[in-house]
């Protein structure tokens, strides 16, 4: 019988997941093998594999374009993540803890969540040029608009009980926030950071679109200009893989840091 609360056995879950991926690969193979779709629009799996191999190691030049691109993209996401956490998390905490700060900042922060961040890129290019600063700032803005409201909500979701108990024991308001509210909000703040970093992976191609000499976004945009669809697919695949790996690592980190949350 169908029951939303009945967890599927692990083996069955894996089987369903495998089936869906196999289905997509199957349809892909059929479409390309029968030349239903020309290779210029949809390269075959084999073509993509070959492109991946060539990008992973170019024997003529003796270097790995893919590794270079990946390293650069990772570095940018990492630097932007550090900035987002260092600036966005304290800001969200202050907004969640002090209604006056929230009232002051939320008219600036909340509408930005639905702002067309991509449209900001030309402005950033105008202001900051086409170098690394522009790319980092773009990633930062794209992620921080999600992070700050989420961190604020995480603080506000903590039961007032903890605040009252701490205040009753003699905590100053600041101590009550620091020792009673903030520690309770930490797992949800971590969720906000995970979302922010995931969002950055979706923006990385846009950030690297303008004048990147290295990076996965640049790899994709050059391949597109050369109509090398197989390389485009490889680039997209690698970004998805990286996003998945960072996501799982951060989930694992969250479980390790806050084991009490799921208990």
């Amino acid at each position: 019988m169908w029951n939303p609360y009945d967890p599927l056995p692990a083996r069955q879950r894996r089987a369903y997941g495998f089936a869906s991926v196999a289905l997509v690969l199957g349809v892909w193979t059929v479409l390309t093998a029968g030349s239903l779709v020309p290779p210029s629009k949809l390269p075959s799996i084999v073509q993509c594999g070959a492109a991946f191999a060539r990008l992973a190691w170019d024997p003529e030049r003796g270097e790995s374009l893919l590794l270079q691109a990946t390293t650069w993209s990772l570095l940018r996401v990492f630097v932007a993540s550090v900035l987002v956490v260092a600036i966005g998390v304290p800001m969200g905490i202050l907004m969640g803890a002090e209604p006056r700060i929230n009232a002051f900042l939320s008219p600036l922060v909340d509408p930005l969540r639905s702002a067309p961040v991509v449209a900001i890129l030309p402005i950033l290019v105008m202001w900051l040029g086409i170098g690394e600063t522009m790319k980092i700032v773009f990633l930062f803005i794209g992620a921080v608009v999600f992070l700050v409201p989420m961190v604020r909500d995480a603080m506000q979701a903590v039961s007032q009980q903890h605040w009252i108990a701490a205040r009753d024991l003699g905590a100053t308001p600041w101590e009550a926030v620091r020792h009673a509210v903030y520690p309770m909000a930490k797992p949800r703040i971590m969720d906000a950071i995970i979302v922010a970093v995931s969002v950055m992976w979706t923006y990385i191609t846009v950030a690297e679109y303008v004048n990147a000499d290295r990076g996965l976004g640049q790899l994709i945009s050059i391949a597109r200009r050369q109509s090398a669809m197989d390389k485009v697919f490889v680039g997209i695949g690698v970004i998805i893989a990286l996003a998945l790996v960072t996501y799982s690592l951060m989930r694992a980190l969250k479980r390790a840091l806050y084991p009490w949350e799921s208990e």
Partner: protein
Amino acid sequence: MSEAQQAERTNDRAPNEEPASFLDVTVSQVVQEYPRPDGEGVQRILDGIDLELNAPTINMLLGPSGCGKSTLLRLLGGVRPIGVKSPTSGEVRIGGVPCNGPHDEAVMVFQRYANRPDLTVYENVAFPFRLKLWRARVPPAEQETRVQEMLEAVGLADKAELRPSQLSGGQNQRVALARALVLRPRILLMDEPFGALDAQTREEMQRLLIDLWKAQKCIVVFVTHDVTEALLLGDRVLVLSASPATIVDDFRIDEPRPRSDAWLMSTPVVQMKDRILQRLHGSKSHGQVRVSF
């Protein structure tokens, strides 16, 4: 701490002064009103409460649920409600000093423990010593001995390294009780502390409370809507009417604790219980009062 917050807290002694054996709590003509939820006018919760607690005794506040027992309790040195003048009129004095907010000598125990899930039992009991106020008053070595002593007193010495989620409800309430008593408060405010526990655990906790109180006497004000609990624990039982609450009866009980079931079934006690129930229902009460055995 800013001056405003300092003024908000009441503190009647210098950091290193020895506490007197007890403090007296005087409530005179206290009225509390809250704005109605629909925004029209005000609702009177407490209607002229007079109360004097001048010895380290256990005082039970008994009344139908929602009658304002917790509101009264919070006025006795707990955290006041936000955005409302509290009390609306009248005065609460603790040790002769007007009290307008959380009092250093009054510590509250809540029905829902308020333990931090990320800290161990030991760290939860030691929690108040993370605060400047208590760090300044209790030297580190004494903090440790006090926490250890309290853990033993509530029977959790062997669970010191566990987290709250690994404990039962009763054990969690022991942690909360230890966290309050580690400060050796002269006023202990308990807001239906055992209300969420099963009958057997509630009895265990009642016995524990009596043992702890005998070892460290203070003024206990204990809110309950359980008549039996009030009779088993109280030196004094204050019966409140339904909202707006007034004190409709005030019993003193001399029977030594722990009180037996036989005592509870004896004719004078049964009569007392009948009288309390009559008071509760005879007043304009429509709330629920529980009698458990």
